[in-house]
């Protein structure tokens, strides 16, 4: 087992809290953030349940100290709040002291802004500063400019595995000595675009989502942003930094089965998990807890569960696992980073956060998720993120 890449800061905003502390409080008191849509304008308000952050864009912009003429989309606002917390947590005062990068995952970037103004854009109009929000990279640059990161800035968009891939790339770049420090994670805001997109695919639940339940009806979309600061061990030693955990394993594979659906044998997920174990130089028995992708769609949970049984075996042999999407909803591109932080909190507190709303085991395998808040010594967590386009990614974290 190699030592892995040090994590020295974390920041998060989701429907269960505006900070790491608030998110932890909600997780340990088992209070979810799933509700009806209240802020976003959509005709589907009363049909679906979502993980919505109950704060207006104006309020978020005020917290960031932005001028009234700012061009931040909601996705950028959420991302900036989480990234700012992460760098403060890491004790970074100048983003350019070391070779510092910023890598952010997003699915639709500033779509929340585009869909608001698209039909009203006109020559010399007030809103033309938002036109660039069409580019996902513009969202990332809004955040990197805010943080003062001007060097290596990158956006990864592999749908719902984007942030996991951002964390993986950051870890690889530090390992290879390309960067000394990198802020990695992802952000996505609720939008009509994604609500209607997943709606047309008939995978949105009108109730609280029930990951790994036999009668699961689909996912609850969520919104959120989460970032981790990864630093080279030389900086950690030099500045005597507190290490919150380490990224030790990572892998990305493609299911190559269907543009949106996952294969019935979970091949992509299987490859991602087994290759991540290889990178970490670990055996399946070394994993203490799995934070599953577990979106609660019929297809995902089946494919992921099958892949888990291929790696670990039956229920007795599989580590304790849960999906925390019952708390936050599926935050799409941000999910990998939000769940990385859940995993780090599990490691820090020796607590496993429950898989909410589960009632009845699936018939296709013997796996049953953990449904209670559980105190248990944990050294190693495996976290999965899968997305459209067959993208499957796995990360492994240790203390």
């Amino acid at each position, binding site marked *: 087992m190699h030592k892995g890449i040090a994590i020295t800061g974390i920041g998060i905003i989701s429907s269960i809290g505006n900070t790491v502390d608030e998110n932890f409080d909600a997780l340990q008191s088992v209070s979810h953030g799933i509700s009806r849509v209240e802020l976003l304008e959509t005709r589907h308000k009363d049909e679906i349940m979502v993980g919505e952050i109950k704060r207006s864009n104006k309020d978020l912009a005020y917290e960031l100290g932005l001028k009234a003429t700012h061009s931040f989309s909601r996705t950028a606002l959420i991302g900036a709040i989480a990234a700012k917390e992460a760098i403060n947590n890491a004790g970074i005062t100048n983003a350019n002291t070391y070779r510092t990068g910023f890598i952010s995952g997003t699915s639709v970037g500033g779509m929340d802004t585009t869909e608001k103004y698209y039909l009203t854009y006109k020559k010399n109009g007030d809103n033309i500063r938002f036109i*660039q929000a069409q580019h996902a*990279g513009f969202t990332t*640059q809004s955040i990197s400019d805010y943080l003062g990161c001007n060097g290596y800035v990158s*956006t*990864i968009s592999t*749908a719902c595995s984007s942030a996991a891939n951002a964390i993986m790339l950051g870890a690889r770049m530090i390992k290879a000595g390309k960067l000394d420090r990198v802020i990695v994670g992802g952000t996505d805001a609720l939008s009509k675009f994604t609500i209607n*997109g997943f709606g047309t695919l008939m995978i949105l639940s009108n109730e609280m989502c029930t990951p790994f339940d036999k009668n699961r009806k689909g996912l609850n979309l969520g919104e959120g942003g989460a970032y981790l600061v990864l630093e080279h061990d030389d900086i950690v030693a030099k500045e005597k930094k507190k290490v919150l955990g380490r990224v030790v394993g990572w892998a990305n594979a493609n299911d*190559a089965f269907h543009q949106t659906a996952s294969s019935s044998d979970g091949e992509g997920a299987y490859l991602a998990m087994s290759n991540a174990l290889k990178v970490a130089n670990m055996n399946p028995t070394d994993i203490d807890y799995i934070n599953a992708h577990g979106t609660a769609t019929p297809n995902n949970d089946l494919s992921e569960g099958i892949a888990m049984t291929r790696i670990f075996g039956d229920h007795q042999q599989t580590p304790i696992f849960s999906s925390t999407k019952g708390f936050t909803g599926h935050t799409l591109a941000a999910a990998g980073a939000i769940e990385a932080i859940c995993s780090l909190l599990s490691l820090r507190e020796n607590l496993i956060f429950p898989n909410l709303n589960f009632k009845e085991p699936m018939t296709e395998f013997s796996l049953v998720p953990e449904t209670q808040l559980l105190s248990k010594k944990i050294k190693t967590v495996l976290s999965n993120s899968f997305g459209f386009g067959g993208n499957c990614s796995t990360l492994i974290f240790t203390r």
Partner: protein
Amino acid sequence: MMDPCFINGIASISAQPTTNPTSFLEEIISYHQPIFKAKDPDYKQYISPATMRRMSKAVKMGVTAATMALEASATSIPDAIITGTGMGCKQDSERFLENILHNDEEFLTPTPFIQSTHNTVGGQIALGLGCKAYNITYVQGSVSFELAAMDAQLILSEEPSKHILVGGIDEVAKNSIVLHTYDEQIKDTDAVDVMNLLNTKTIGSVSSEGATFMVLGSKKTEKSLAKIIDIHTISKATPDIIQEQIETFIIRQGMTLQDIDTVILGNNGDINFDHYYTSLQTSIFSDMEQLCYKHLIGEYPVASGFGFWLASKIFTLNKVPSVLKVNQIKAKKHINILLYNQYLGKDHSIVLLQKC
């Protein structure tokens, strides 16, 4: 120094006829409007009609250019698929968005949504090849192509035996592209002599589309066209800082400015931002052969991938089409070619390619 990284096959679809492997810009198409499309190759040779029916332009261009590059490098299945795109699958995104807005979120079908994600092209290539390997998509404006190539270099340093498919794709979408005439990205005029783009001295550029794919490996093969020495990206900088960064970049390679034979620059005729190039053209690049290409293929986020294609052609054919030249200096040899590109003063890339 970077680990060795060779371009073992490359293909480019652009507004010019660039898909014939034996020709090199002998025939040039002139455009006279600010938004123009790619010159389509015969997609039927690469994609079955049934599959093609559902494909947007980005997917068609991407899958075709990827196939061409794989064939050129004699690679059947790559060990990773890495794509870059500034705007992604804009046609399907636009279609789905407009359906939502015009029909008040009713009567929607999932197909445009499914195909709207930025990783659609990478996913479709994987699906077509049955390739289960590493697959990722970078979406960072005008450095999207370079970030994809940098990830490939990183993989080759981790696992030198691999062969990586790297590509950039951007497509024109009817309505959302027009918005860029409002915010000064595209020239607000119906008629523009694109061949004369670099001398227009007006605000904005012209917009087009295209795809460039290449296969990278750590070993030189008989198919090798060029060696990628290093790539550096900068999110935001002033022209002065860019000049410093280019000088530092060259020193980092153990070279001096005199070692650079030719520079390929991303000038796009936007009077607000072309000074990023002209300040270099009149200073550290003043004694070098200078080439430009956006008056031929237009501007789009991954247009800079065309620079990789140009350099590969120049190395292997040992000639420079005069239509590219923007100064009087003729390089005596073509060993080291430096690429510099930026867009709206952001997402700068500096690339050094070498003859191999």
